[in-house]
């Protein structure tokens, strides 16, 4: 089970800010049953965020905060892996 503090710490390590509510949501969802480890989760989350940045306007990208949408996309990626 992954703790929210660990996820925030991991994101800080990559200088990625994540919205508090988004982190809560993600942790609640992955905290049930067997799930990914912290490294896998972080990789998926950053990848999901990067994908959104790749699709949206550059000016918005420069804000660079991981949002709820990124977390939902991340969960979708994890589901695809199962």
């Amino acid at each position, binding site marked *: 089970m992954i703790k929210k503090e660990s996820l925030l710490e991991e994101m800080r390590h990559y*200088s990625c800010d994540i919205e508090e509510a988004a982190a809560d949501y993600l942790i609640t969802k992955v905290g049930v049953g067997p799930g990914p480890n912290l490294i896998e989760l972080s*990789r998926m989350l950053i*990848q999901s965020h*990067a994908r959104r*940045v*790749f699709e949206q306007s*550059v000016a918005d*990208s420069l804000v660079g905060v991981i949002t709820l949408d990124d977390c939902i996309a991340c969960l979708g990626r994890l589901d695809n892996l199962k």
Partner: protein
Amino acid sequence: MITTQNVNLRNVSGLLRLRGRESLFDGFSHANLCSDHSGDLQISIAGKSIDEIIYRIVMAFYQSGRALPLGNLTESAKVLQIVQEQSEIFGEAEEATRVLGHYGELHEAYREESNRRKVIELEKSRERMHDLINEGFSSLVGIEDVRAVVEDFAAMHFFNQVRQVQGKKPIPQTKHLVMVGNPGTGKTSVARIIARLYHEIGITTSSAITEVSRSDLIGDHIGATEKKCKAIFQEAQGGVLFIDEAYSLAVPNGTLGTVDYGKRVIDQLVVEAENKRLGLTIILAGYPLEMQSFLETNPGLRSRFPITINFADYGKEALEAILFSMLEEVDLEADFVAADGVEDFRQELAKAQRLPSFGNARWVRNYVESVTRDRARVAFRLSTDLSTDLGTQPSHRRVL
């Protein structure tokens, strides 16, 4: 020998480039800091550091009401930092605050302009990446999963460019892949496209793809395997290393006694996949069941190859699309249709698909080659009237 004539002291840019090379100024007593040679802004440089000289220049420019000739954002940022530091050393903070306020506006203007340009550059970069991906996959059928993986890596590459603008460090990504699929599902073709695309997008430094199989990696005596592997990993550095039928590495050597050279390759593969993960993309390819067993042979393999792309068997429609794409390449599409070739193709395909060794796109390629040979055979017949018959003779099917 540096003289006041060839050291550009007219603007701060020249001095910034000379930071850390103070010894070049040994022996000079003063320098003319302005372009007009009027001598009105002379400053003694003997015994002064470059930073102090820059500081004095900025103060002198401010006091004289002149515009400070700074080239760009980086320079203005450096100069403002130097002014801050030097003013603290000399206890001139109050005066420096006014100077920093004045030139700080200039710096902000530079920053805004610089950001605006960077956003335009990023927009161009992203558009180019999308175009390259569209173009790269335009001729392929049924490769949505592959495309998604390449788009992910392009997205990460772009994301890192954005982070660079934000002054953040890039986030490194392991690009190693496993490709699993039956024969002829396009693993090798896609690996070649990935190698080219990664390079065009800027993810890798080379477009080269080194394609190897077990025999290229395994030596015939002790020490030879390590040497061969090392040379191949070295050769592939910067590009893509494609190991076809990678599962065969896990098959023990039957004829070489007790030495398992395949295991040595796997051990080295695990090490290189980790050590060279940022500069090399390794793709392991093979058939689904065999690859699944192979990835379990070493506990380190799975974690170093986190992404698996499944190449599904092509359906009938996809195979027909591949057929027409191949016929178009050899300019036989019209002939083939005129000779009712499509019906023949469907019948042959239905038979071939029942075989366990069915080769998907490779089977289609063989079929097209047989059609081409038949076409050539018709043209070669003495009875063929080249002026009339060539375009109307049916392309008979071949047994494949």
